[in-house]
């Protein structure tokens, strides 16, 4: 019997030797509001053409041509408004949409209260707080080539490519649009219209909002960009703000699938 107890204690001690204090995670108290999910899918285009990387020379309105090699942007702080005017905000709402990574172009928001939603609002870029919050993870991780290492801040939207009109070495075009504060802030909060449609979240239906992103808008409206004179933007300036002002209307709701 003694031997048994000793053996037993031996095993108990061995097993517990490395165990940390059992700080049991308590179950969060969840509200009883029934929730469902909602999908958002981005479709990057050049006008009516599906965007392709390193293939097509797209022709701008002023005749300049550009072959696109990189196209990525942050969508953050997504909010949905239901038919009663009540707002739902996604938590940790940071998404990096990358043309080279199809998986990044669609995502599902869970925990969405079961309602009919009539509008969406989101930010193009990353809010100022997260720009200065230290090491982040996921979409905001600093290893996504969207974080400046020499002057703190996220690149909100990045467009790179080649244009015969560009006077830069190797005819390169590089628009790295950033700036989270001050007069040249590139942060844009936009609400592309649902055109009367609704996204009806229910326990059985996960609606999908298809959002078209028209890259051509970077170069027009309100300011027409000539690639001969504006081809490399890698700092925060009036020029980077000008591009952000241009691309603020690049998103339109294509349709909503319920």
């Amino acid at each position, binding site marked *: 019997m*003694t*031997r048994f107890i*000793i*053996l037993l*204690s*031996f095993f108990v*001690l*061995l097993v517990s*030797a*490395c165990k940390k204090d059992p700080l049991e995670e308590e179950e969060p108290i969840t509200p009883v509001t029934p929730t469902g999910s909602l999908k958002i899918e981005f479709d990057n285009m050049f006008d009516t053409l599906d965007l392709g990387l390193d293939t097509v020379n797209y022709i701008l309105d002023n005749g300049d041509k550009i072959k696109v090699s990189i196209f990525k942007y942050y969508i953050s702080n997504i909010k949905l408004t239901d038919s009663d005017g009540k707002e739902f905000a996604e938590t940790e709402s940071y998404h990096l949409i990358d043309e080279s990574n199809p998986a990044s172009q669609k995502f599902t928001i869970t925990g969405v209260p079961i309602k009919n939603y009539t509008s969406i609002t989101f930010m193009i870029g990353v809010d100022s707080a997260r*720009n*200065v*919050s*230290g*090491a*982040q*993870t996921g979409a905001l*991780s*600093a*290893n996504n080539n969207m*974080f400046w*290492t*020499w*002057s*703190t801040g996220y690149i909100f939207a990045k467009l790179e490519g080649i244009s015969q009109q560009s006077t830069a070495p190797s005819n390169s075009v590089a628009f790295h649009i950033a700036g989270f504060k001050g007069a040249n802030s590139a942060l844009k909060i936009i609400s592309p219209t649902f055109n009367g449609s609704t996204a009806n979240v229910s326990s059985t239906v996960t609606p999908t909002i298809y959002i078209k992103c028209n890259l051509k808008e970077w170069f027009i409206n309100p300011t027409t960009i000539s690639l001969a004179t504006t081809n490399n933007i890698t*700092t*925060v*300036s009036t020029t980077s703000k000008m591009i952000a002002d241009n691309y603020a209307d690049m998103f339109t709701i294509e349709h909503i699938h319920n």
Partner: protein
Amino acid sequence: MRLLFYSIVVVICCQFISCSVDPKIKPILPSNDIREIIPEGWPQPVYTFQDNQLSQDKFILGRELFYEEMFSKDNSISCGSCHQGFVAFANAEHRFSHGVDGSLGKRNAPALFNMNWNTSFMWDGGILHIENQPLGPIANPIEMHEDINNAITKLQASNKYKQLFTLAFGDDLINTQRILKAIAQFQGMLYSYNSKYDQYKRGEQDVSFSSQEQNGYLLFQQKCNSCHREPLFTNFEFKNNGLSIDPTIQDSGRAHITGDPLDKYKFKTPSLRNIALTTPYMHDGRFSNLDQVIEHYASGIVDNGTLDPNLSGGISLSAQDKADLKAFLLTLTDYTFINDDRFKDPN
């Protein structure tokens, strides 16, 4: 009874074995003293480890990463290559540090200590958070010139790091955030507050200033303290301190970050703590000794448009004043800090 004794011995041995890690992998710290420090009379630090809870394992990982050469493109240099503990983590006797591929920097590697009080990082203040600071020198082509993703791939191939990350974070995932949090623990723990000046201010027994040091301290308070403000000996602001423009470098300083012409040739005020160790001096390391530095402020000030108004016309100092001021500056050396085994390369 004998059986009980042996059982206890076996249990104790098993406990040791089941928890112990190869000491080469997890070096035992000379001291378990990994905790936040706010010396008496100092302001609240900017960075408080609030979202990066200090632990011995994270500190040890951060120290390994600080001395890890895999963060450079050709595995030749680490943070510690240009930030050497014996000179308060400045780069000893280097105006400019050597990067990979024979490259040379264009600014003098700053000393590292009391980092948690910094409101921004680098001479131009371009980096706004201690955790993100290492990304700058890692990516910079004239420094380590490495892609952080490449560095992660290299770390992932190392059994040592699999173990160190597991000890620090609970599993062997190696990502940017974990790397940066761990290095921030090491950099944040570099507290320097035990110079003769500190001991004198604390009224410690057998510590007194000579009359020359005392006079130098008074001069310092009258003529230097507005920028090199006690107790951190910097106000963390950006100033043009009257250096002539080096035409071979043309470093616009703070203006490179803000784009504001009024910020041209301004650099962050460096702390004067450990100043005797951190030669050469100024953002471009143009002065090799403290006499030259003091003489610059006395007679070498150049106004190139954005000069700090306090320095207009220079600081009036007699020969005796200069000697006294220097004597005071020598009291700012913290030998406890530079000899602290916790901060040394464990390999």
